[in-house]
């Protein structure tokens, strides 16, 4: 095949025929069209006449051009040109198909697989033996390459999926040796579909493949992008996108995906919690490659709680050359606890230091923690420090809440804890919490007190890393000849190891540890004279760390120094020791069980049951063949679960472009589009031209009469259309279908209506205000998403309806925001709305102005328009929603029905509101029409505003007074609303179940 631009020719020899065109030109020019023969007796009269107008007998120029063009088109057509030609096999003999098959291939997987299949099928046609090998296949490296019938390879390729790891070209090295040693019949044609990225050993293998016969390397138009694992620096999270080729500036969008926890004040633990924990896109950041840069870094700036909820990052919107989304494992990153920003709870026993901040230890702690972690001050000082017994229960409860969100707790000079709090604290630490304590007067007093009781240091407190000696010591005081002590360099076992110890840090006073056999290994920092400054011990999964000085500058200058900030940073970073670092994995003998694994396309799914656990040292080597990226878990000694996220790329990985193929090997680019044969088009064009030529010849011969000309032109057009490429030979069917289509035309339904009728669709009334319509659309989208997540209702895309034009009978719910700009309704719209309400539709009218009224009681600016628009509707009597109304309990039990604002909601008045029935009977079922389902709900709370989300899943509008809690209630109202519309009074009927059962029993 010959290729010319994007066009290839299957029969290029025909193109030589184009050279004959000048000859044809000459011939045609010399051969005028044949005359029309007429039998005419008048010829006798003519005989004597001289033909004065005798023109040279030549073909007119335009006819010449027409005919040459037709001939050229025919020649072109027979050379079988193909647009975007498929790669084609060139030679005979055995064919070796090599695919990378790693995540880099996933970006344009369909195109790759199609290309490979094409090759295999072509080989099958020629009955060539084929061997297929994927360099990333999970199986053991092949010892030999078996050439077999192409059908086997076709089956292999058809079933092939990209692997989430990088390929290893060296794997086929041994297999190649067999051929290299001369054990082959002839030259082997090798085709290597690669991902455009450099892999270890690919150049050498390419050289060896080339030596087997011929090598064609087919790569993508551009190698894929990848995502490096994010890094935490100074408490901020940075993520880098990588690219292989230093091209021009380019922006990449990176989505942060996670399942945010329900807010901590949300005490519901039912379905809601589960529903709201579904993963969604929490943020999208844009990283920009500078011109020529291979790495683009961007900070993911999110509130701590949300950042901690992130489960993965992925590059979104990357399009491959063929336009398909290029999702692959290299562009996705799973996150584990290592990337969480810690939250530290600060608890101080100091009393009344607020007026003198520089004396408060909290001040220094805040300053030291700010760069590394989020902190919150817990107001437990009195509760934890005081001995007042009536507060005990409360403090334990409060502490329980505290432990729910804190990764580390700092207790600054807190002495005795009440038993309940201590138990809770111990439990929390044992689960992996980090407790950092600072000494102080109270702790010193505590040690003194204990000593006073027994005369000797008592049992070691579980919440202190070491036994303390009473009283502590003071250095450099007026009565002391010892000078304040500087720090000794940190021991290697300490997490502080490596930090610079300056001479400016001196300690004047400290609490002393009782010497013991285990003390030395618990010391993380010590003074120059060897007395411990920081001690730590493990408690369960967690740790207890004690600074033997205060958090303020009273006892030492440590809190004033930069060292303190760094020490706190190190401490915070070790905080939950649950997440293993890869460095420590190397000597980790535990086996890690894959929980969630990523496939080649970067999709994360629960690991299959047969996924085998892997030893820690295996994971430490990173993702490679057989070790898929994903989330691995292991059980620690204490029975806790530690998790580790493995990503396709390591932190220090870079992407490099594939080296150019060895000399003599062909390098091609994957064509994204399927090939399009141009032959039919050219043939039909040539046919049309030839038909035109017939007309032209008739014209020249004077045989063309105007009424025949029109007919002939029509025939030519029809023939041209007929000859135009229709899919193969299915013309009869096509025509038949055309006939059916024509028949269908009469009863054709508007596709939008069809969609609305076939799907469950929430609809809103299109007002004359585009801004309001956008909110309605976004709001119903948000509600649809909530319904989809939480209930069995699975709505489609919301639809906007124009009351004047569209058929509203196909919808169940119609949300109608009232605006000042909507014109009065026509009679037609009124009729449709009345019918809609009569036949079970639910009209939700929202004036959206509760925030502009007093107490949401109505009377807002849109009320006039509400009256104006609804005045002609056939409305029932209305009443405010009563607490026992079905709307408050169709799905959730709700006290109020808020949107962005809170306000009264009006529904159809029930019989009870209309007064007792004659005879004093109470109606068993309240409202008669529509089974008591109110056809209209009127409110002012701007529900759509509360529900509104963007396509990315972000909320569009802030909530009014109630914050996210109110948004949750707004969603619950929306769910109730949908349930009310779809299930009616089902819930209120259930009220009567006991009575019914009772009656059945009797």
């Amino acid at each position, binding site marked *: 095949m010959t290729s010319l631009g994007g066009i290839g020719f299957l029969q290029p020899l025909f193109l030589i025929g184009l050279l004959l065109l000048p000859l044809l030109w000459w011939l045609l020019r010399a051969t005028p*069209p044949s005359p029309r023969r007429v039998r005419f*007796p*008048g010829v*006798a*009269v003519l005989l004597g*006449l001289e033909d*004065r107008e005798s023109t040279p007998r030549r073909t007119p120029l335009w006819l010449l051009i027409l005919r040459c063009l037709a001939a050229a088109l025919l020649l072109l057509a027979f050379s079988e040109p193909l647009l975007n030609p498929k790669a084609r096999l060139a030679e005979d003999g055995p064919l070796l198909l090599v695919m990378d098959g790693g995540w880099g291939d996933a970006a344009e997987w369909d195109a790759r697989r199609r290309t490979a299949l094409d090759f295999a099928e072509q080989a099958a046609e020629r009955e060539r033996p084929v061997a297929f090998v994927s360099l990333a296949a999970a199986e053991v490296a092949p010892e030999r390459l078996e050439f077999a019938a192409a059908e086997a390879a076709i089956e292999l390729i058809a079933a092939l999926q990209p692997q989430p790891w990088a390929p290893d070209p060296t794997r086929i090295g041994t297999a190649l040796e067999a051929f290299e040693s001369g054990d082959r019949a002839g030259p082997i044609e090798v085709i290597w579909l690669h991902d455009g990225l450099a892999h270890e050993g690919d150049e050498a293998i390419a050289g060896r493949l080339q030596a087997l016969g011929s090598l064609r390397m087919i790569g993508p138009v551009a190698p894929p992008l990848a995502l490096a694992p994010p890094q935490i620096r100074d408490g901020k999270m940075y993520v880098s996108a990588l690219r292989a080729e230093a091209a021009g500036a380019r922006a990449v969008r990176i989505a942060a995906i996670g399942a945010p926890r329900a807010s901590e004040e949300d005490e519901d633990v039912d379905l809601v919690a589960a529903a709201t924990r579904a993963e969604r896109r929490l943020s999208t950041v844009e990283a920009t490659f500078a011109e020529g840069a291979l790495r683009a870094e961007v900070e993911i700036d999110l509130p701590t709680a949300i950042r901690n909820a992130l489960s993965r990052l992925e590059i979104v919107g990357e399009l491959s050359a063929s336009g398909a989304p290029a999702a692959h494992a290299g562009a996705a990153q799973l996150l584990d606890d290592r990337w969480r920003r810690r939250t530290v709870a600060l608890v101080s026993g100091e009393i009344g230091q607020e007026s003198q901040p520089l004396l408060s230890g909290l001040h220094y702690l805040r300053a030291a923690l700010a760069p590394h972690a989020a902190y919150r001050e817990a107001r437990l000082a009195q509760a934890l420090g005081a001995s007042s017994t009536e507060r005990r229960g409360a403090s334990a409860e409060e502490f329980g809440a505290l432990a729910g969100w804190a990764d580390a707790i700092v207790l600054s000079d807190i002495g005795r804890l009440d038993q309940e709090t201590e138990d809770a604290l111990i439990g929390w630490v044992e689960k992996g919490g980090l407790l950092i304590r600072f000494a102080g007067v109270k702790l010193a007093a505590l040690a003194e007190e204990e000593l006073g009781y027994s005369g000797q240091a008592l049992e070691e407190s579980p919440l202190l890393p070491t036994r303390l000696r009473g009283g502590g010591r003071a250095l450099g005081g007026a009565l002391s000849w010892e000078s304040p002590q500087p720090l000794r360099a940190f021991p290697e076992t300490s997490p502080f190891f490596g930090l610079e110890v300056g001479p400016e840090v001196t300690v004047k006073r400290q609490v002393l540890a009782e010497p013991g056999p285990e003390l030395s290994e618990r010391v993380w920092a010590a003074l120059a004279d060897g007395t411990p400054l920081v001690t730590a011990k493990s408690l369960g999964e967690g740790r207890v760390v004690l600074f033997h000085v205060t958090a303020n500058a009273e006892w030492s200058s440590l809190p004033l120094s930069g060292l303190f900030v760094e020490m706190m940073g190190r401490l915070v970073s070790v905080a939950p020791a649950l997440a293993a670092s890869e460095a420590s994995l190397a000597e980790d003998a535990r086996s890690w069980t894959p929980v969630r694994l990523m496939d080649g396309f970067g999709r994360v799914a629960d690991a299959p049951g047969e996924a085998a656990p892997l030893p820690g040292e295996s994971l430490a080597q990173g993702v490679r063949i057989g070790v898929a990226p994903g989330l691995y878990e292991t059980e620690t000694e204490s029975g806790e679960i530690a998790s580790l996220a493995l990503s396709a790329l390591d932190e220090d990985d870079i992407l490099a472009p594939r080296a150019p193929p060895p000399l003599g090997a062909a390098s091609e680019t994957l064509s994204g589009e399927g090939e399009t044969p141009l032959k039919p088009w050219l043939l039909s064009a040539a046919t049309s031209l030839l038909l035109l030529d017939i007309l032209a010849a008739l014209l020249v011969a*004077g045989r063309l009469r105007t009424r025949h000309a029109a007919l002939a032109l029509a025939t030519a057009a029809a023939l041209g259309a007929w000859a135009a490429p229709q899919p193969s030979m299915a013309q009869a069917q096509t025509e038949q279908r055309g006939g059916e289509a024509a028949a269908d035309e009469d009863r054709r339904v508007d596709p939008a209506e069809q969609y609305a009728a076939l799907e469950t669709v929430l609809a809103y009334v299109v007002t004359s205000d585009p801004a309001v319509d956008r909110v309605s659309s976004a709001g119903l989208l948000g509600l649809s998403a909530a319904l989809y997540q939480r209930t069995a209702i699975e709505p489609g895309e919301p639809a906007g309806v124009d009351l004047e034009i569209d058929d509203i009978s196909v919808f169940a719910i119609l949300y109608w925001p009232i605006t000042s700009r909507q014109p009065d309704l026509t009679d037609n719209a009124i009729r449709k709305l009345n019918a809609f309400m009569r036949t079970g539709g639910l009209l939700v009218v929202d004036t959206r102005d509760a925030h502009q009224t007093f107490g949401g009681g109505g009377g807002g600016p849109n009320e006039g328009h509400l009256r104006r628009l609804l005045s002609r509707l056939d409305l029932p009597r209305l009443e405010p929603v009563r607490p026992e109304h079905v709307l408050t309990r169709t799905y959730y039990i709700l006290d109020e029905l808020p949107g962005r604002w809170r306000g009264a909601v009006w529904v159809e008045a029930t019989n009870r509101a209309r007064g007792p029935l004659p005879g004093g009977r109470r109606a068993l079922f309240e409202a008669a029409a529509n089974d008591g389902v109110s056809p209209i709900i009127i409110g002012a709370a701007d529900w759509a505003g509360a529900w509104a989300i963007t396509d990315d899943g972000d909320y569009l509008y802030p909530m009014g007074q109630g914050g996210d809690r109110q948004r949750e209630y707004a969603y619950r109202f929306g769910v109730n609303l949908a349930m009310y519309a779809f299930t009616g009074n089902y819930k209120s009927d259930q009220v009567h179940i006991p009575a019914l059962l009772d009656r059945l029993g009797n």
Partner: protein
Amino acid sequence: MNDDAASDDALAPIRALRRDAEQTAAALPVLLARAERLAATVILGAHGRRRSGHGETFWQYRHAMPGDPLPSVDWRRSARSESALFVRETEWEAAQTVSIWCDRSQAMAYRSDPRLETKAERAAELAAALSLLLMRGGERLALIGTPAGRPSVGQAQLTRVLHALVQSEDEDFGAPPRFSARRGGWAVFISDFFGDEAALTQAIRETASQGLSGILLQVVDPAEESFPFDGRVLFESMARRLRYETDRAGAMRDDYRDALAARRARLRETARKLGWLFAEHRTDQSAAPAMLWLWQGLSSDMVSRGGGGGR
């Protein structure tokens, strides 16, 4: 089987003959019917032969006109009147010989539009109608150049004429054959006169020189007058013996019309000099006016010559 084939071969000429005969026989009634219809229009219009002429039965008396020869005066009748002289006219009874030449060459088989009759059909129709009228008038009739070329009277001669009329000749263009006739007879030539002009003029002169009066009726197709051709055309005569090719037939139209007009003018001039009549007839016109003209031309001339000529 072989016998059948052989007998087929032997019978083939007879079969062809019979087929031709049948075709002819089929055409004959058509021709006869059309001729009768055409003749009827003439009889209704001019009352045929009931007029004065050579004969023995009294026809009418009329006032003698200056120039009437004296012997023609009927004295007995004149004596009964006071002053006027009467001439006694007898009804025309003398059998005249009318020699008709109807061109049956290939050129006559032309028609430019299938809705038209061919020139040959129209010419045969006119000739047949004329023959019919003449036969009823008892005139001697000859269709020259055919088996019915000997002047004769009666139904048999008419049948022969009709038979001859429906047969065509192979000639491309026709020319009146030589024939000898008694003086005072009539010659009626019906043709398109597209044949060789010199031969035609020669034939007319020779006929006239035998003392015959004559009528020339040129039957043409409308296309032969309008020349509706355009573009590159190869013109062929009906038997393809003549050819003429032009690239732009449209440009030839005026020349052709001029040439045709000149040809007619020459023919008309020839006729005028010899005292013959000349008329043109197009096949898209009704045949009746041409028939009437033929008949009137024939009889008026007979009257003028028969009465006036005194022969």
